[in-house]
């Protein structure tokens, strides 16, 4: 008080520089925020339904979704449908990614062949593959094979383009070094080209796991007896919104889990890559 009365600014002691850290910016804090957001959303939704602001018939309700989920878990149908979709999506993903990557890498061997087929690849890629779904069902039937085939058609081209591009981008200095050592073309391929394409190919896994699910679900929409796509499609035709939501949330969860599975695969396959988060620039 006396300081102010004297009209002098208080002499601020040099404060130790302390990096301000937001209260919630820790692993637990962030998780708490994320959980709170989800809880808040569902609470608003439920309240809205109970007050009559939101139509239960058109939007479903969290309480109904939960009840449906428990019922379907008990009857076992949810587990069966989920395992069908997971199987179709994973198998399609693995076949499509492996075949596409191998084909893309093989194009490195011959610039001539690569140049000849390049416009065809672009053409195939520019077709929305989902449009092929009816034909694929005609060819492969309404069973499991057609869903896998659809997932393959979506994932293979992505993997092929990524692998071919990565092989083209492989460090030419490393290849030059191998040539000066007297390496053969096979040795250059296996020692310089293939290893350098692994990170970009794994990066496509993240996109392709989503495409695998898209292929499986769309296939199930069109014609099927099982699967989450089948579940969602039939439920929506009965205006059973709660069941539709159960299917959607399970799909979301699946995508989430598969994404982290790929994270683990990445860390095992490319230990020489420091994770990108650790050397991110703080702005």
């Amino acid at each position, binding site marked *: 008080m006396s300081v102010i009365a004297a009209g002098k600014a208080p002499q601020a002691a040099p404060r130790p520089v302390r990096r301000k850290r937001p209260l919630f910016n820790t692993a637990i804090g962030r998780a708490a925020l994320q959980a709170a957001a989800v809880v808040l959303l569902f609470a608003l939704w439920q309240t809205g339904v109970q007050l009559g602001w939101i139509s239960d018939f058109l939007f479903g309700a969290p309480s109904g979704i939960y009840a449906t989920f428990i019922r379907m878990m008990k009857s076992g149908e949810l587990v069966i449908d989920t395992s069908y979709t997971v199987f179709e999506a994973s198998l399609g993903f693995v076949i499509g990614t492996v075949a596409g990557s191998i084909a893309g890498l093989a194009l490195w061997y011959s610039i001539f062949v690569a140049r000849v087929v390049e416009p065809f690849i672009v053409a195939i890629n520019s077709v929305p593959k989902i449009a092929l779904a009816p034909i694929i069902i005609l060819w492969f039937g309404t069973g499991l094979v057609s869903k896998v085939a659809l997932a393959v058609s979506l994932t293979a081209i992505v993997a092929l383009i990524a692998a071919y591009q990565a092989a083209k981008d492989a460090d030419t200095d490393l290849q030059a070094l191998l040539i000066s050592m007297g390496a053969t073309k096979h040795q250059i391929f296996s020692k310089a080209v293939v290893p350098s394409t692994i990170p970009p190919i794994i990066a496509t896994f993240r996109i392709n796991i989503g495409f695998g699910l898209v292929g499986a679900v769309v296939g199930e929409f069109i014609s099927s007896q099982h699967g989450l796509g089948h579940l969602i499609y039939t439920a929506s035709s009965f205006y059973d919104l709660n069941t539709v939501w159960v299917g959607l949330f399970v799909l979301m969860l699946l995508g989430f889990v598969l994404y982290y599975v790929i994270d683990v695969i990445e860390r095992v396959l*490319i230990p020489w890559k420091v994770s990108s988060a650790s050397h991110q620039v703080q702005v």
Partner: protein
Amino acid sequence: MAGPAIQLSVRNIHKAFASKGAEVRVLDGLSFDIYERDFVSIIGPSGCGKTTIFNIIAGLIEPDSGELIYRGEAVASLRGQVGYMMQKDLLFPWRTVLDNVLLGLEVRGVAREAAVKQAHRHLQAFGLAGFENAYPKTLSGGMRQRVALIRTLIMDPGILLLDEPFSALDYQTRLYLEGVLKQSVENFHKTVVLVTHDIDEAVALSKRVVVLTGRPARVKTVHDIDIAESSPVTARSDRRFAGYFRKLCGELDIQTEAQATPALEI
């Protein structure tokens, strides 16, 4: 007088590149000799084609005309017989230090067990024992270039082609690695051709310095460097060092006197 035995003779090499429709002549009848156990530095104005001649010797590109004579025989290139080291260390990021060192031996098809034994000896000698399983990313620039040097030496190449191998390093690390290089070249009885833009490095390390003209490159002069000191640090304090340095600067048309005034008279 009978000179020392010639190991590699570069004869009348011509090379032109097409650039935006026009033809750029890079090498125009380049000829020089490398003796057995020689240490030759090639200096010249930047962009004069020093790297091009290395790429021709290593078999990465073909000359338009001219020939290479290696130990009396005309050869297309020395692919597989040279140890090429560049400014970038070119360590394979997905290989550990040990596997990087083994690269050349793998290419050659040497049995892994014998190769590993040899690699351990080299890593020990170069003070890199204990880093066998480290990835290049975790090493300092100097350590990485040392790994690259081991990778080159372990193949026991006929000629080492060093293309500004130390120019990306700080001065202290560079002096240290120059010493390591000089020492190992003497221990392993190697022939070295060093491309550098650093006159000081050329004088301190070499037995002879080849000065090239600007593009298209031809040999302007060849200087013998008569400094017996083996360490690059003591070589720099030799009383003849300054004389060689000044002479080579003159050859490269580098202004040795301060000439600030004429610019002000415009």
